[in-house]
């Protein structure tokens, strides 16, 4: 990739290649997300729950994970995270269209119910908050075997009201397990604002009570997010225990394709969210630093668009699950 002449070499110690890679991940996720919305409106995807606006923190986090070595317990908005780890637009389009070859669930679950054994991404269901405890258990196993794998787990802020959130933090902190808890805090649980969900504005305020670090970060700032996640992962890997990260993000779409947020949010709130979109601001910042020219960006988009087109075509052409397979995989062979 051509870099503008008097380009900076790094921002806050993160080199230009890494920053460009991060931007590309974010853009790729956004374009895939937009594609899936389009397919939803065309009737080819029956449900979608989007990650738009939350890409920066996800990509920042994913950059520190060693795929297949570390462990990931994601939630449904983590499209960008799964791409960073090695899943592909084709994988997620197969899922979106509920095709037999969907590597996440074989078309059995709604789209955005991520999972991939090869990459140590555990299978996720729809019941929020259960994955917190899984993450603690995964990290316990790593600790018992003396491995340095780190487990990262993500969630929305609403789900932190569930008891499982507390049980997981309590256990992980008690045994200094290598877990990074990341809250992608978009201020809403469907229609319920944080003020009716919890008594303080920051989930990370809870950290003190468990004797672990709690950090608030602008989750739309890839640089700040990268640094915070890097520190938390390093801490975990060094055996120093969990960190609770509270990443503030906007929710750029309705809760899901079955929802219409204009019915419960003001026009101003929607506009404010749009001004917090991570993508354009990051492109501008990289541009200012001479790390990404408008031409670079256009070329990147063009390539990604081609990727989306191919992947869409492949997914559309793929087979539906066999009706009789509904009976398979309840129990294995003893």
């Amino acid at each position, binding site marked *: 990739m051509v870099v503008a002449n008097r380009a900076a070499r790094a921002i806050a110690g993160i080199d230009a290649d890494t920053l460009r890679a991060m931007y590309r991940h974010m853009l790729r996720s956004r374009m895939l997300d937009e594609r899936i919305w389009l397919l939803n409106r065309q009737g080819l995807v029956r449900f979608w729950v989007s990650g738009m606006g939350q890409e920066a923190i996800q990509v920042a986090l994913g950059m520190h994970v060693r795929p297949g070595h570390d462990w990931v317990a994601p939630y449904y908005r983590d499209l960008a995270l799964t791409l960073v780890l090695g899943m592909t637009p084709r994988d997620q389009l197969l899922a979106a269209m509920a095709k037999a070859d969907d590597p996440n669930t074989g078309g059995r679950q709604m789209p955005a119910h991520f999972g991939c054994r090869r990459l140590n991404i555990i299978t996720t269901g729809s019941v929020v*908050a259960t994955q917190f405890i899984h993450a603690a258990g995964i990290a316990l196993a790593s600790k018992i075997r003396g491995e340095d794998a780190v487990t990262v787990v993500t969630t929305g802020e609403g789900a932190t*009201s569930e008891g*499982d959130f507390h049980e997981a933090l309590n256990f992980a902190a008690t045994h200094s397990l290598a877990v990074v808890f990341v809250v992608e805090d978009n201020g809403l649980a469907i229609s319920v604002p944080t003020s009716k*969900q919890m008594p303080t504005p920051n989930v990370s305020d809870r950290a003190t009570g468990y004797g672990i670090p709690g950090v608030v970060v602008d989750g739309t700032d890839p640089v700040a997010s990268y640094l915070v996640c890097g520190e938390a992962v390093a801490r975990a890997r060094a055996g120093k225990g969990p960190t609770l990260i509270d990443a503030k993000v906007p929710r750029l779409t309705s809760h899901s394709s079955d929802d219409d947020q204009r019915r*419960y949010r003001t026009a101003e709130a929607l506009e404010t969210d749009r001004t917090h979109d991570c993508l354009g601001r990051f492109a501008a910042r990289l541009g200012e630093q001479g790390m990404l020219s408008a031409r670079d960006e256009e070329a990147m988009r063009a390539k990604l668009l081609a990727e989306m087109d191919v992947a869409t075509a492949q997914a559309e052409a793929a087979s539906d699950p066999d009706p009789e397979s*509904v009976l398979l995989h309840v129990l294995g062979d003893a």
Partner: protein
Amino acid sequence: MAVKTYLEAIREGMRDEMRRDDRVMIFGEDVGFKGGVFGVTEGLQREFGEWRVMDSPLAESCIVGVCIGAAFNGMRPIAEIQFQDFILPGVDQIVSEAAKIRYRSNDDWNMPLVIRAPFGGGVHGALYHSQSIEAMFCGVPGLRVVVPSNPYDAKGMLVAAIRDPDPVLYFEHKKAYRSIRGEVPDHEYTVPLDRVRVVREGRDIVIFTYGLMVDTAVQAAERLAPDGFSVSVVDLRSLRPLDRQGIVESARRCGKVLIAQEANLAVSVSSEVSAIVAEECFEYLDAPVMRIGGPEVPAMPFAKPLEDAYLVDVDKLESKLRRLAEY
């Protein structure tokens, strides 16, 4: 009488009781300003205010437990669980607490509490937005479990549930919300919580069922009429306690019994109805008691071919019915 949807009937039941009794309140995720993810509580917060139609945190044990506490202290709460699938984090509060409060206190306390939740599939809701897990509660003494199948019952049973002095789980089929319509009186009325309803009278076979499957059963029954088979359809309405007498009467009269449900069969409502028939109707039966329901897989998948394969539709029900008719 006005024709209303199942959803409107439920909303009206709550609204009317809230107007009559200011102890009645609603607590659940998104029930307030948004009016619930299905719109069942739409408009109620505007009429009754933020405290009586209250958005809960995203925490089901909290939803049930707060309602239990409020009921201890004189309220008549209605908890809304967003999907029946998500009731499980609240199971301990329902089964260990609500169900046992009257018994364990030797009648010193009781627990007037309604827990509403939408269940059922066929709405591309996949594993966690399609389940029918009511059986889990139908074995629990101290609970009532009811499922209305039409707007009239929906309103009348909900009003009865709100006035009932014990915990009532009131499950609504989410596909019925806007697809099932019927006449609903404007005046105050209740429908008893523990009586079957004979939806269709017949002589040869009786189908026991509940929820949206009542409709499917009526359609299947009609398909057999031209062939001279006369099929009863009985809506169980109450899954706990079951109306033993109502079940036995129809089973004895018809002599052939089919139990149909959307849920998987093992250790379910269908099992208990069959066991009751076995105990009480041995000398009246002309054929084995048959059952049809979901397969023994964890839940309904998302992909359309899989969802279709999972669901009992009119065709599948008809062919089971013919097998029984021809026995």
